[in-house]
């Protein structure tokens, strides 16, 4: 019997596979049984109503997609009253993802969402901080530390900090999130990107710029998971471009304790369940008793550690 369970920032998951925020909703129950997932993660909610961005909200590339959905949200009251009950029809731990324009708003929304039905809060600090000219909180260590400290003080729930890949100092940001009180890190959100229609000379997204996801970003994020996991003692959840079981193993070897699958679910809503089955079979075939044995097991020789980065 292979043990697929993982310990994650205050929670035990039956397996390390869960959806990425914004790429999943209870609607998927039309196609698969969500009860087989390690955890459920909601779309990020905001405090008040948000309309979201103009269409087109997505555009595809050869190996991924750009999105500028713009966090449409009915606000936290509808989220708690209407959205959470839809997720609670299912048994896996429920992770509520929250976004906020300001640190004050983050405090209010985290207080409100700290209800018994929610098992952990994913703090989406890759969204823009209006007090910093719209730069994402998690672009800098200082703003990461201060916002995580504030939400830590207002909630007893396990807190997962969702980091952005759009930073030049991922290890410092990861350490700051840990110091601020995060129980786990999710690495990472989408990569800031743009696509232009060369015929019309118009941006392909209604919001001009957006976030790149899918296999195109995987090597970038695997590197960031590796750097983050070395920098912190809390679990790291890998997220970016996972298309199959081998990608999951790669993320775990880089240091991830679990993973989130996003864009792939748009191509194959059954993919997460296939991965869970394949992961179990793979461990059995390799004589691995617990899937956690993969975590951080990348073989890097001591003399290769900390080599200067001349790419």
């Amino acid at each position, binding site marked *: 019997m292979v043990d697929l369970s993982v310990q994650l920032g205050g929670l035990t998951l039956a397996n390390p596979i869960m959806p990425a925020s914004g790429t999943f909703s209870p609607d998927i129950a039309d196609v698969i049984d969500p009860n087989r997932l390690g955890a459920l993660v909601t779309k990020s909610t905001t405090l008040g109503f948000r309309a979201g961005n103009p269409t087109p909200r997505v555009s595809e*590339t050869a190996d991924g997609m750009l999105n500028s959905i713009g966090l449409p949200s009915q606000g936290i009251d509808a989220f708690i009253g209407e959205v959470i009950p839809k997720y609670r029809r299912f048994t896996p731990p429920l992770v509520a993802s929250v976004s906020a324009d300001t640190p004050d708003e983050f405090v209010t929304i985290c207080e409100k969402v700290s209800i018994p039905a929610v098992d952990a809060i994913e703090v989406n600090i890759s969204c823009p901080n209006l007090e910093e000219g719209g730069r994402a909180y998690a672009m800098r260590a200082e703003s990461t530390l201060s916002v995580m400290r504030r939400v830590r003080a207002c909630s007893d729930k396990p807190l997962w900090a969702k980091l952005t890949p759009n930073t030049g100092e991922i290890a410092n940001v990861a350490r700051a999130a840990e110091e601020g009180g995060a129980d786990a890190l999710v690495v990472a959100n989408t990569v800031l990107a743009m696509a232009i229609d060369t015929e019309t000379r118009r941006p392909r997204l209604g919001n001009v710029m957006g976030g790149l996801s899918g296999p195109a970003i995987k090597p970038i994020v695997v590197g960031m998971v590796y750097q983050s996991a070395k920098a912190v003692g809390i679990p790291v959840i890998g997220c970016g471009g996972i298309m199959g079981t081998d990608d999951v193993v790669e993320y775990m070897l880089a240091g991830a304790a679990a993973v989130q699958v996003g864009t792939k679910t748009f191509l*194959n809503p059954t993919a997460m369940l296939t991965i869970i089955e394949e992961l179990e079979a793979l461990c059995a075939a390799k004589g691995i008793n617990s899937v956690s044995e993969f975590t951080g097991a990348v073989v890097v020789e001591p003399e290769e550690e900390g080599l200067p980065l001349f790419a």
Partner: protein
Amino acid sequence: MTATANSDSMAATPPAPFAAAENVCTVVSNHPVNARYNHLVLAAPPTALTARPGQFFHLLCEGVPGDPAFLRRPMSVYRLRPADGADGASGIVEFLYKVVGAGTRAMARLEPGGSFNILGPLGQGFHLDPGWRHVVIVARGVGLATLAPLADMCRRAGVGIGAILSAQSPELIMAEDVMEAVGAEVVRVTDTEGTSTVANVERLVRGRIAEGRADALFTCGSNRLLMLLQKIARQEGIPGQVALEQQMACGLGMCVCCVRQVRRGGQTLDLRVCREGPVFELEEPVSW
């Protein structure tokens, strides 16, 4: 143990019935029907065969190097034939499609015997009110693919159909035969013959109304025609439905990329075409 308890415990709990699936189909045929449109016939597993008129599938189009297609492509079910238990024939799902970009080019490359993954059936289909005796269907271009199964649904319900089929040129009018086979009275209008103007279509629709043969109006495929039918429906107090298009990623309601503005319950809402649609009440979409 009583017989009742026994039979209870014997009763197998059926597996959770999923409304939709990644149906892996086998290509039966894939031919051009004219210069612009192709017709794809698939042998499909049972879940796919539960599709209702107006619903769609989200197709996993496999691009090739140099012409990649990443996301799935939404396509209305054009025709459906249930499996024939007697002769063992598998059920059939058909699509009528226009080749416009990488995804539909990938579809055009499908060859008989190959497999094709179609997610669905998805979305809300058309519905018929039991009181309707005659409906008017106004289809432009490939919108016809979406409305053809509605015509069949009308025939089964004993509802008469007046169909106005609009296209750029006469040879691009499609499925006239399909419409006529279900007893529709078909009028063709085209750009090249100068008959597809909004004014002429309005005259034709109002003609049906004057004859008392327009209990409901249906349309798909043109924003101009949508606006026209919305105006007529409002003035004449006639109900109707429209199938909308919007770019999609997940097709299931998860990503919220496919919204269109819709007036409902006194509010203007962003509703998901893949989940609350693609069929909406005629008066609902905010057209532009």
